[in-house]
């Protein structure tokens, strides 16, 4: 056995996957089945009791999904992962393990608009109360901590403007408060930023974006860093107390540094039900194999497009952390030295109307509500992803009426710039 430790690109291709035991198939097979047979009654009992490793039912685990889980855990440097149906499902499952009705969690104000809605409305109806803080003002997180705080939630690279969050500073606040730091790493992907290296205890992703990367499959994932001690003070009974669902098992005691991922699987996914289709897992796995290649090209193209826009007379400003003049450039150099991502915003001197006109004239950029596709995408957040926020909240989250958001794809950058040129100029 070699002492050489494989790098990120090797893990992106190999982690979690090996030739199929039965057929020798080298690509990961799509185990499109609901259920798995038991060897005998004792085997069934061992599986249901969590005593044995194995498969029962695809709502709890599936061999194709398991490859995806191990691969993303390896890429993020975590101990284990759980794949679910979407990024939103990942957030529900994570917080279900951490919060009881009446509890609070602190969230960065700059978030994907869908997350702001989910936290503000859906989670409120569960009695999970979000308290907002400003990721550009670390002390606002400290001030938000109360005895009911159970977690802090941030994005490593925040939508819509691609601003970079000071993960280490916020992880210090979380550690002091004795709560886990949850980082949504969707926009950066582990190729650019590995939040666990900077103090994250839990990482979540919408796999739909750069990890899958081709705009063809929804998915979400939860990665357990294995760093948080769930036993202190009885604050996290789903992990530290005997669980009646499993005849009194204590998950942290039994599963150690991957207990959180197991809790998400056996208490979250099993009982809430947002299982990922094995077919989607296969599509996303195939995407991940080229993540390092795609992500670098996304970043290189985004930087070229941002530089072009910054010099264009119709453009009022560009918010891209990869530009030396950007207020997040220093954080980008620290956290994402390979590139500042591919999602950013710019504002047009012509305001709302100029934004609408630009989107309608673009020929290569597709007008749609997703990011992280091979194709370049464009959207006017104020009228779409952030439309359900009031005007003040729109501006606060960086989605004012004059703002246009791009997700730069992996086409030839000259063609992307030419498309913007014709749409801005005419």
């Amino acid at each position, binding site marked *: 056995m070699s002492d050489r430790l494989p790098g990120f690109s090797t893990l992106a291709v190999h*982690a979690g996957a090996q030739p199929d035991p039965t057929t020798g198939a080298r690509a990961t097979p799509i185990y499109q089945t609901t259920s798995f047979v038991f060897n005998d009654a004792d085997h069934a009992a061992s599986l249901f*009791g969590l005593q044995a490793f194995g498969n029962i039912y695809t709502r709890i685990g599936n061999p194709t999904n398991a490859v995806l889980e191990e691969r993303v855990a390896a890429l993020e440097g975590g101990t284990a992962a759980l794949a679910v149906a979407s990024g939103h499902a990942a957030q529900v499952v994570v917080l279900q393990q951490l919060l009881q009705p009446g509890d609070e969690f602190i969230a960065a104000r700059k978030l994907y608009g869908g997350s702001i809605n989910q936290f503000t409305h859906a989670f409120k109806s569960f009695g999970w109360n979000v308290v907002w803080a400003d990721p550009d003002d670390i002390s606002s997180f400290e001030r938000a901590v109360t005895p009911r705080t159970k977690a802090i939630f941030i994005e490593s690279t925040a939508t819509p403007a691609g601003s970079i969050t000071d993960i280490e500073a916020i992880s210090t606040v979380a550690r002091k408060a004795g709560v886990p730091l949850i980082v949504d790493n969707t926009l950066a992907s582990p190729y650019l930023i590995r939040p666990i290296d900077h103090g994250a205890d839990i990482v979540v992703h919408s796999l739909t974006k750069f990890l899958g990367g081709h705009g063809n499959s929804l998915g979400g994932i939860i990665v357990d860093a294995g760093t948080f001690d769930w036993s202190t003070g009885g604050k996290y009974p789903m992990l530290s107390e005997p669980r009646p669902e499993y005849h009194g098992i204590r998950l942290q005691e039994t*599963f150690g540094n991957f207990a959180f991922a197991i809790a998400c*699987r056996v208490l979250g996914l099993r009982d809430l039900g947002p299982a990922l289709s094995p077919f989607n897992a296969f599509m996303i796995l195939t995407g991940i194999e080229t993540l390092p290649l795609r992500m670098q090209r996304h970043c290189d193209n985004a930087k070229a497009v941002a530089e072009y826009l910054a010099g264009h007379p119709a453009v009022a400003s560009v918010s891209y952390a990869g530009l030396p003049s950007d207020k997040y450039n220093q954080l980008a150099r620290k956290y994402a030295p390979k590139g500042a991502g591919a999602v950013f915003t710019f504002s047009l001197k012509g305001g709302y109307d100029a934004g609408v006109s630009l989107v309608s004239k673009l020929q290569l950029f597709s007008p749609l509500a997703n990011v992280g596709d091979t194709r370049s995408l464009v959207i006017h957040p104020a009228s779409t992803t952030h439309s359900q926020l009031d005007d003040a909240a729109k501006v606060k989250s960086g989605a004012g009426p004059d703002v246009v958001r791009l997700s730069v794809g992996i086409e030839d950058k000259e063609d992307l710039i030419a498309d913007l040129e014709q749409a801005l100029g005419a």
Partner: protein
Amino acid sequence: MNHDAYPDNYIRGILNSVKSIAMVGASPVNVRPSYFAFKYLAQRGYDMIPVNPGHVGKELLGKPFVASLSDIGRPVDMIDIFRNSSHIMPVVEEALTLDPLPKVIWMQLGARDDAAAAKAESVGIKVVMNRCPKIEYGRLSSEISWMGVNSRTLSSKRAPVPTQGMRLSLNRMSVGGGDTAASDRAAKNKTEQG
């Protein structure tokens, strides 16, 4: 030996070489971690001996309980201790009176006693602390990957189909890119604080 993080080869060497394992604190209650580990290791072909003075006269999965290590009456390769850190030292001291000495003393997840470890190591016994042999066996064989756990290993060979009673190959390539340095660090901090 640095007990904050173990090289895979160290754990692999232990699990590949030991045949008999005496489990101190083995429980007949089927939701206790010791029961999980006892059953799994027995299924993977290890010669398991349950040690628990509270259950002498009974059996655990067909194996008779003994009251103490000195009651085993035959050589054992490894002692696996399912006790809190504060109860480790007397078990290690008893293990050091055995003739022949065990080759390995293993302390379970959450259990760590550096003084006891040093004592055992001074007479040539290998020590593992704050780990579970079931989890490590499952990890190095990648069987634990069924649960989405990062095995931190890779292999391009066709995997065996795991069946009951079968020993699995633990000789996969180890991975640094997905190590658990962060969680080992956290465990150490916890031990130092606690």
